[in-house]
């Protein structure tokens, strides 16, 4: 196996542009895929960002991982149920995900199980312990 792209099946690849691959995978597969990505290129990958989106009917978490030897960005999109958004943390595979996961939890309320520093006001003020401002139903 030479390219990270071969990890994904045809149906999983949503879109492909120059140096961008958008992939939709299931929640259970995410950790395996990330682990394989890191191992495949001997750690020559880094996490650019984790984007959380509230699609009203569901939540989406998108892991943007840059693969240095391939010069390609892989966007791993995972759908989560909106009423109980929960996913296993990847911070043990890529420690750099720690703060990204905290931020997403803080603003959207997506729980990353296994993240050791996950706590509620991370960047929000102390008084906003129960509010998730980036959810679409948040009243401003």
């Amino acid at each position, binding site marked *: 196996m030479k390219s990270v792209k071969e990890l994904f099946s045809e149906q999983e690849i949503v879109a492909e542009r120059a140096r961008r691959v958008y992939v939709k995978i299931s929640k259970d597969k995410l950790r395996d895929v990330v682990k394989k990505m890191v191992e495949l290129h001997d750690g020559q990958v880094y996490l650019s960002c984790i984007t959380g989106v509230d699609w009203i009917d569901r939540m989406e978490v998108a892991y943007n991982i840059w693969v240095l030897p391939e010069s390609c960005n892989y*966007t791993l999109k995972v759908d989560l149920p909106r009423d109980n958004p929960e996913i296993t943390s990847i911070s043990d595979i890529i420690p750099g995900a720690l703060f990204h996961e905290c931020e997403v939890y803080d603003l959207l309320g997506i729980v990353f199980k296994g993240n050791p520093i996950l706590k509620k006001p991370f960047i929000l003020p102390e008084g906003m312990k129960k509010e998730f401002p980036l959810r679409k139903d948040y009243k401003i």
Partner: protein
Amino acid sequence: MSIIELIFGPQHPALHEPEMFRFHVDGEKVIEAIPRIGYVHRGIEKLFEQKTHVQNIYLSERICGICNVAHTLTYVNVIERAGDIDVPPRAKYLRVIVAELNRLHSHMLLLGAVAELMGFTTLFMLIWRDREKIMDLVELITGNRVISAYNTIGGVRRDIDSDKADKIRKVLLKVEEEWKEYKKTWMEDPTITRRTMGVGILKPRDALKYCVVGPVLRGSGVKSDVRKDDPYEVYGDIPFNVVTYDTCDSWARYMVRVDEILESINIILYALDNLPQGEIRRPLVRRLPEAEAFAKTEAPRGELVYHLYSKGGFKPYRLKVRTPTFANILGATIMFKGERIADIPVILGSIDPCFACEDRHTIVDLRSGKSFMLSSREITRKFSRGSKP
């Protein structure tokens, strides 16, 4: 002496912006560093969703004043990717020129500030004197010293003529000469090298593991530059080197920036010489189709990421911004361990922290931002209440 909790910030001379670090120190040695971020959290990501694509250009610029060109550049890039808008070649070159001027002034700002953090006020004053010349150039091209408002969707907003190009060349050559001297100072001055060498080590493996970006990553010897890896605008056509140093310490991270200044000057001179003729902008596109786009650029502080979800229409559905400092701050907490109190400013300076960048979303501004259109009467009421109680 037992372990003292030393609190750095939110107000501290070594931090030019509000941020708090709790350092557990044993005598002079740092045992643990715990950051608390979010003091300048302005709710910009939420605000993006309320405003139109055109208004958001200027909002993105306000995430960070220092690297404002990088922010607008990434923003217009993400919009152009989502809407398949092509940009005239002259505009691409002009964008590169202004982006590199921005990098110049940002790196000078940092290196000067760091000289000051080490107590070297003279170097700080001299570097900032030269930075002033660069800012005058930015003012000449864009009409303002700092906030440039230069990039727009589908091109740039102002053109330069040959007079301006000559003036830019002249000033840059002078600055280059000065910088060659400063580089010697950074490389050889005994007090600087003693303070920075071997301080705040971040091994290449750790650098990738903790996902640091930009000069911090290159200072750890990893050859990664968005301008080379993922060329945007015309960086693919311009010859330049990716500067890396492999001593992995604070000194390496500073030297990366010193060398990048010289590289940037060459890039600008090359772009000025090869500036194509033609128009500078396409008609403004206000409406985007349903799309998802991911754009990244090399901001002065490292990789800057914008992730856009559009559902069609005038406003973005979700716009995620990942600024370089947010990625670097975790790496910094690793660098602090085992170093001395005296090294804290040096290490913190070496990641070029920009906390306004890092914390993007406060609710306070958002709430006042809701009533963003006040009539004259409302304003009168508001001010008269404020001034005459």
